[in-house]
């Protein structure tokens, strides 16, 4: 039966104190409704322009700060065809370098996404050239046999690097604006979550057979819930959603612990909402209220019992205790931000093929009283092909579908994306992307919708 109940989600009207996450809706942008050409997802030419005008001009998430906590700790991350080395400095700052020895072009560190330690220097294993933690040459064996001396660059080629939100960020553009300017509203919105308090629970990369944007799109709209994730109709309201588009980035606020207007209310509390209750420490069997009051009851319960459980929610509003504050940090970070956990996805383009991408999956959790620091083992990174690992039911459902989207986009019988209002963030994303790729300036200064 097709159902569409009338339902209005009750939302917090005020932020939680001056430092709380802003809750007011952003001005509604007025984008054109024209078709988004499909070649942005399929063409190598577009992929190349995207690299030259966008990927090499933006700030990119490199690693988590606690991947490299001590001076000398370093990690390699990859973006498109390039490999970037992030090294913790003696002054606790982090520096980024192209991961390439200036001698014969060997990659300095071969292990990717694997935190490594170093004392004073990093050594290239080809001819033992050594670099200091700050990138300068430390030792070049047989330097006297180079009549021209050491390369004039003085060491590794550095890149802009900074930290925010417990993550290390870098840019391939030496002239990029400061990170905080680039992030715009993001720190003000997400600092109340204290992401630095969360611990890593899972960390993996899966190669998917789709363009990286097809993945970003899948997380930027809730319209597909009724298609791909029908079980979530007993978990969230996929229709009454607050969508906010900012300069480059965007968010939507989705109420969790509620029924979708697309289903009839069952006489019992649906199992997915029971899970939310249990996670909060409530006993679903003791809950006497109706399913319509469950979200508010969970919020009240968490507000009251959070501190006892060792969880500090003081900077978060009540909605944040249950709901998904979903942020997209342009170009490739989509994050489901919750009071107790963070699901962070980084979508990376394949070095050559627009039909492939790398899906980086990070799962973080806010520790409670029962968390044992000494027992905790940091998960190691692993890379998989599509289908080799489970990312949980919901992401598996998306992952199963995306290769078919990519194949379909390559069909002669398809021209482009025909988007509705529920997919506003995808439009916004494409506008920002086009500002980079086709715009006169590498750094868009236009406000969303203007």
């Amino acid at each position, binding site marked *: 039966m097709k159902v569409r109940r009338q339902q209005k989600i009750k939302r917090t009207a005020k932020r939680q104190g001056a430092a709380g996450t802003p809750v007011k809706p952003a001005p509604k942008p007025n984008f054109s409704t024209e078709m988004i050409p499909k070649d942005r997802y399929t063409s190598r030419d577009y992929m190349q322009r995207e690299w030259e005008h966008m990927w090499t001009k933006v700030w990119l998430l490199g690693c988590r700060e606690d991947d490299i906590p001590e001076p000398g700790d370093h990690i390699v991350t990859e973006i498109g065809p390039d490999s970037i080395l992030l090294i913790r400095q003696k002054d606790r700052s982090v520096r980024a370098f192209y991961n390439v020895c200036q001698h014969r072009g060997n990659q300095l560190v071969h292990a990717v996404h694997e935190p490594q330690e170093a004392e004073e220097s990093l050594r290239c294993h080809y001819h033992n050239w050594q670099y200091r933690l700050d990138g300068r040459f430390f030792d070049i064996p047989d330097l006297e046999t180079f009549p021209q001396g050491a390369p004039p660059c003085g060491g590794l080629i550095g890149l802009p690097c900074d930290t925010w939100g417990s993550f290390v960020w870098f840019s391939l553009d030496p002239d990029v604006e400061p990170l905080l300017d680039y992030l715009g509203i993001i720190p003000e919105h997400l600092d109340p979550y204290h992401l630095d308090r969360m611990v890593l629970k899972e960390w993996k990369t899966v190669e998917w057979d789709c363009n990286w944007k097809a993945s970003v799109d899948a997380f930027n709209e809730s319209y597909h819930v009724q298609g791909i994730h029908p079980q979530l109709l*007993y978990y969230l309201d996929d229709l009454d959603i607050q969508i906010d588009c900012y300069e480059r980035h965007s968010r939507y606020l989705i109420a969790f612990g509620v029924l979708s207007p697309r289903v*009839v*209310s*069952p006489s*019992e509390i649906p199992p997915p909402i029971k899970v939310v209750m249990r996670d909060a420490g409530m*006993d679903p069997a*003791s809950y006497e209220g109706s399913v319509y009051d469950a979200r508010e009851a969970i919020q009240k319960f968490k507000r009251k019992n959070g501190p006892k459980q060792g969880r500090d929610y003081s900077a978060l509003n009540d909605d944040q205790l249950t709901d998904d504050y979903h942020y997209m940090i342009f170009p490739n970070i989509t994050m489901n931000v919750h009071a107790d956990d963070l699901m962070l996805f980084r979508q990376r383009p394949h070095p050559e093929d627009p039909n492939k991408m790398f899906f980086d999956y990070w799962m973080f959790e806010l520790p409670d009283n029962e968390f044992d620091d000494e027992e905790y083992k940091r998960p190691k990174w692993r890379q998989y092909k599509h289908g080799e690992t489970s990312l949980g039911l919901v992401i598996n459902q998306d992952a199963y579908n995306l290769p078919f989207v990519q194949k379909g986009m390559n069909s002669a019988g398809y021209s482009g994306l025909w988007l509705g209002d529920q997919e506003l963030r995808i439009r916004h994303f494409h506008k920002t992307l086009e500002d980079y790729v086709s715009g006169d300036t590498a750094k868009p200064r236009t406000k969303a919708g203007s």
Partner: protein
Amino acid sequence: MDLGLRGKNVLITGATQGIGRRTANLFAEEGANVAICSRSPESVNKAVKEMKVIADGKITGAPCNIKNKEEYEAWIEAMAEELGGIDVFIPNVSAGGGADSEKNWWKSFEIDVLGTVRGVEAVIPHMEKRGGGAVTMISTTAAVETFMVPQAYNAMKAALITYAKQLSQAHGEQGVRVNSVSPGPIYFDGGAWDMIKISNEKFYERTEKTHALGRLGTPEEVASCIVFLSSAAASWVTGVNLVVDGGYTKRVQF
């Protein structure tokens, strides 16, 4: 076949939705006077109003939380007075499934078991006064075969089958027949199987195939069995557990 329900007085607990509601509708269509309850006054009023459209007899109802013994007994007395006696009683309210905590056991005991026991004890004197009556309890196939997970619902519903059998022996002399109906998976909008159909279509389809008749039952198909067992057409049936499941369970019932 005349079910002989015209003018009979029927009490059903929790009959504002699902199988209970369809049962109440059917009694009403058969010309019985029907009294219903639910915790919420709005849903009782709505159901009463809707049932009146199809009814020949009197339709009434009042809010009642059957967990509260006094409130429950008062509802039975008030309904008996309003209808002028009790001929049929259907203790239908259930705490439903769940394996969350010990609390599920207390709730199932309080609502499914005590909600039946207290009701039966209050209605039997009324039935005796009229020279007989029928009680039809609602159990489940989850009581007679392993189903889903070990949980209070399955075990407490099983208790009702035994209780019904013993009652049938104890009150036969007063002309009171006591039976139970055990539905298998039943589909209706807003029901547990609606949620399963939407959330996990494959499991739903597997369950359909498990039925000898190849589909899930409807609440109307259960209601007609409840109404039959509660009617004069079943005057020689007492102490049975009628499994209404389209061949979902596989055991042989000797």
